[in-house]
C-alpha cells in the first residue's frame, strides 16, 4: 500500500510537485527571514558589546552618570585589584580593562608643521596581552586593511578611512593631543602600525586604537581604567545572567555613598539597549510568528485544496471498500511525506542562503556615508541552531494540519451519495 501511495505521489504532480515547491519556497523564506533578522539584530547587540558596553561593564558611579563625555577624571582607581576581584567573583566571564578617550590627531609634516588633523575617538585595549582576548574579540586581524597589529608600546591602529583622509601611511607618525585624567594637556606620539575597517562608519572614519599601557602613560592613569568590561565565555549575551551578576555585584556597594564606588551595568542598561533588546525579542518573535502563520495558512490551504481535488478519488476508494479511517490516515501520511520533503529541501536552500548572507552579507555602507551611528555597514544573517527546525513549523505541521482538517470531510462524507457523486 505504501508503494502504491508513493507511486501516486510521484506521478501526480499536482499532489507532489506543487505542494513541495510551495513548501520549499515557504520554508526557505521563513529560514532566510529568521536568520537574517537574528543576524542583523544580533550584530547590533554584538557590535555594541564588543566595542562599547561589554556584556556587563564596571565603572564608577560618577563615570556612569557622565559616560557620554568620556570622563576619565572619574575613572576607576586600583583597577588591577578590582579586576582580580571580579575574576574571582565571576569566573564565568572574561574581564578586561579599557580606556576610552577623545582628542585630536595631528599628522606632522616633518617641518614642525601639520599635514592634517582630525578629531578622534580613542580606545585603549589590552592589545599586548595575549590572554585578554581583545584582539580576537574586536576581530582586529579581520578588520586590518593594511599593516600589522601593534607589536610594542608606541604603535597605534587607526581607522582606514581616517588614515585615507589624513593621508597617513603605515609607519607614519601621528600625534595625539588631548587631556590627561587630571585635566592637563597631553601630547603623545604614535607610529601607525596598521589601518582598520570595522564596518562601522563611526569607527572607520575616526578611531585610534592603542594599547592600554600607552593610554595609562599618556593620560596619567597609572593603575586606573575608565571601564572594566566583562564578557561571557561563550561570547553570547545572556540577559538574565548579566542582570543577575550586576545585581549581585551592586548589592555589595549599596551602603557606599561614594560617587567613585564601582557600579556594574548590564548591556541592556547601556546605550538605551533595553528597549532595543525588548524590541528585538518582540519584533523577531512577532515577525517570524506572523510569517510562519502566513505560510502556515498558505500551506494549510494547499493541503485543503489537495484534499478537495481528490474528492472523487476518495469516493472511489470508499466505494471499493476502503475504510474512512484508512483513507484519512493515508492522506495524513502523504502530507507528512510531502511536508517533510519540502521542509528538508526548503531548510537546505534556506541555510544555503543564510550561509551566503553570513559570509558576504549586504553592504549598506553606501547608505551610511554620513552616519556616526555605531552599526555594522554590512548586514549579515546568522546561523542559529533553531533554523534547523523552524522551517518545519510551516512546512510540516501546517501542511499536515491542513490535510488533517480537509480530511475531516472524509468522515463527514455520506457514502449514500457516492453513486450520484461518481456519476459526474
Amino acid at each position, binding site marked *: *500500500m505504501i508503494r*502504491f501511495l508513493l*507511486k*501516486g505521489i510521484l*506521478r*501526480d504532480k499536482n*499532489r507532489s510537485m506543487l505542494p513541495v515547491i510551495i513548501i520549499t519556497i515557504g520554508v526557505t523564506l521563513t529560514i532566510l527571514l529568521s536568520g537574517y533578522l537574528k543576524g542583523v539584530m544580533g550584530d547590533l547587540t554584538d557590535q555594541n558589546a564588543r566595542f562599547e558596553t561589554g556584556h556587563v561593564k564596571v565603572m564608577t558611579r560618577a563615570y556612569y552618570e557622565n559616560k557620554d563625555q568620556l570622563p576619565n577624571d572619574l575613572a576607576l582607581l586600583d583597577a588591577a585589584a578590582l579586576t582580580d576581584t571580579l575574576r574571582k567573583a565571576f569566573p564565568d566571564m572574561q574581564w578586561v580593562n579599557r580606556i576610552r578617550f577623545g582628542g585630536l590627531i595631528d599628522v606632522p609634516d616633518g617641518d614642525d608643521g601639520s599635514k592634517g588633523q582630525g578629531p578622534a575617538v580613542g580606545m585603549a585595549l589590552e592589545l599586548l596581552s595575549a590572554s585578554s582576548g581583545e584582539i580576537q574579540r574586536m576581530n582586529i586581524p579581520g578588520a586590518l586593511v593594511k599593516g600589522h597589529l601593534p607589536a610594542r608600546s608606541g604603535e597605534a591602529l587607526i581607522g582606514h578611512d581616517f588614515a585615507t583622509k589624513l593621508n597617513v601611511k603605515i609607519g607614519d607618525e601621528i600625534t595625539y593631543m588631548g587631556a590627561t585624567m587630571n585635566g592637563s594637556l597631553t601630547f603623545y606620539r604614535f607610529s601607525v602600525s596598521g589601518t582598520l575597517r570595522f564596518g562601522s562608519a563611526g569607527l572607520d572614519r575616526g578611531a585610534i586604537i592603542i594599547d592600554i599601557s600607552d593610554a595609562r602613560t599618556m593620560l596619567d592613569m597609572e593603575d586606573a581604567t575608565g571601564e572594566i568590561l566583562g564578557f561571557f565565555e561563550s561570547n553570547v549575551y545572556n540577559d538574565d545572567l548579566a542582570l543577575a551578576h550586576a545585581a549581585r555585584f551592586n548589592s555589595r556597594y549599596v551602603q557606599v555613598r561614594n560617587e567613585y564606588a564601582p557600579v556594574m551595568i548590564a548591556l541592556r542598561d547601556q546605550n538605551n539597549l533595553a528597549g532595543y533588546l525588548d524590541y528585538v525579542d518582540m519584533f523577531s518573535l512577532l515577525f517570524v510568528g506572523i510569517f510562519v502563520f502566513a505560510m502556515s495558512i498558505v500551506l494549510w490551504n494547499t493541503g485543503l485544496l489537495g484534499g478537495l481535488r481528490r474528492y*472523487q*478519488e476518495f*469516493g*472511489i*476508494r*470508499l*466505494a*471499493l*471498500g*476502503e*475504510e*474512512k*479511517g*484508512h483513507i484519512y490516515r493515508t492522506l495524513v501520511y502523504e502530507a507528512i511525506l510531502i511536508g517533510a520533503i519540502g521542509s528538508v529541501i526548503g531548510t537546505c536552500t534556506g541555510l544555503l542562503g543564510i550561509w551566503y548572507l553570513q559570509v558576504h552579507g549586504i553592504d549598506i555602507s553606501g547608505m551610511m556615508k554620513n552616519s556616526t551611528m555605531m552599526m555594522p555597514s554590512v548586514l549579515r544573517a546568522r546561523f542559529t541552531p533553531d533554523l534547523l527546525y523552524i522551517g518545519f513549523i510551516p512546512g510540516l505541521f501546517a501542511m499536515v494540519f491542513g490535510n488533517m482538517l480537509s480530511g475531516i470531510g472524509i468522515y463527514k462524507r455520506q*457514502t*449514500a451519495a*457516492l*453513486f*450520484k457523486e*461518481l*456519476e*459526474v
Partner: protein
Amino acid sequence: MRPVAYTKQLVPGTKNPEPDFAYVNTFNMKQEKIITLEHVTKRFPVGDGEFAALRDITLDFQKGEFAGLVGPSGSGKTTLLNIIGSLDSPTEGTAMVMGKRISALSHKQSARLRNLHLGFIFQVFNLLPVYTVYENVEFSLLLQNRSASERKKAVMEALEWVGLEKMANKKPAKISGGEGQRVAIARAMVKRPEIVLADEPTANLDAKNAHAIIQTMKKLNEELGTTFLFSTHDEKVMSYLDRLVHLNDGKVAQDELVNHKTKTP
C-alpha cells in the same frame, strides 16, 4: 418474495405443474439467497417533511442471478442499490446482504463487506488516473492485504477475462471508453466478489461497446457464478438480464423473469 412472472414463464414449458419445483430444477445453482429485503422503506428529510424514496420493498436475490432494477429516474433504483451496497441503510425494514443486516453494520463493517464481497461498476468508469490499468485493478486486492504474487495472478486473470491483459501498463487516459469500462469490470471482479452492483454501466458507451461490456459481464456471471445487479433503463442491458425488477415511485411495480431462449438480445 418469489417473483410472480418467473413461475408464469417457466411453468408452461415444463411438465411439472409445481412452480416452486420448476424454479429449483432450472435454477438449482441459484438457490442460496444472497440478498434479502423485507419491507424496506427509505425516507429522506426534505425541508420540514420527508420524501420516501423506497416504500415497503420486499425482494430477494439468489446467488448467481443476472438481474436489473429498472425504472424511470427517481424511481428508487440507486437508493436500493445504495442499501444493497451497504452505502446506506433503510429507514424501516430489513436488508440482509451476505447474511449481514445492513442497518446493524458499523462504517468499518460496511467497508469490509464492500471490500470482501461486493464489486461496484459505475456509469463513469472512475478509474484512478495516475495509476495504470494494472494498478487500478490491483487496488482492491491491496486493501485485502493479499501478497504480491497473489495479486499479480489475480489481476492478470481479471484482465484476461475482459481481454485487456496487453493494456496492463497503460494509463486510463490512453484507453478508450469501452476499454475503461472493461477495466472497471476487472476491478470489480478481481477480488471475486459474490455480488457486483452496476449503476448504468453502459450509459456512456456506444451500442457496440455496450453489447461487448454486457456480454463480458454475462460471461463472468455464468462462469464464476457472480450475482450481477444492475440499475438501468437501457434496453440493451435489459435484453440480457434474466430478471427485471421494475420500480416506480419507490415501489416494486413488477418483478419479471425473462426467458432469453425466447428472446434475441
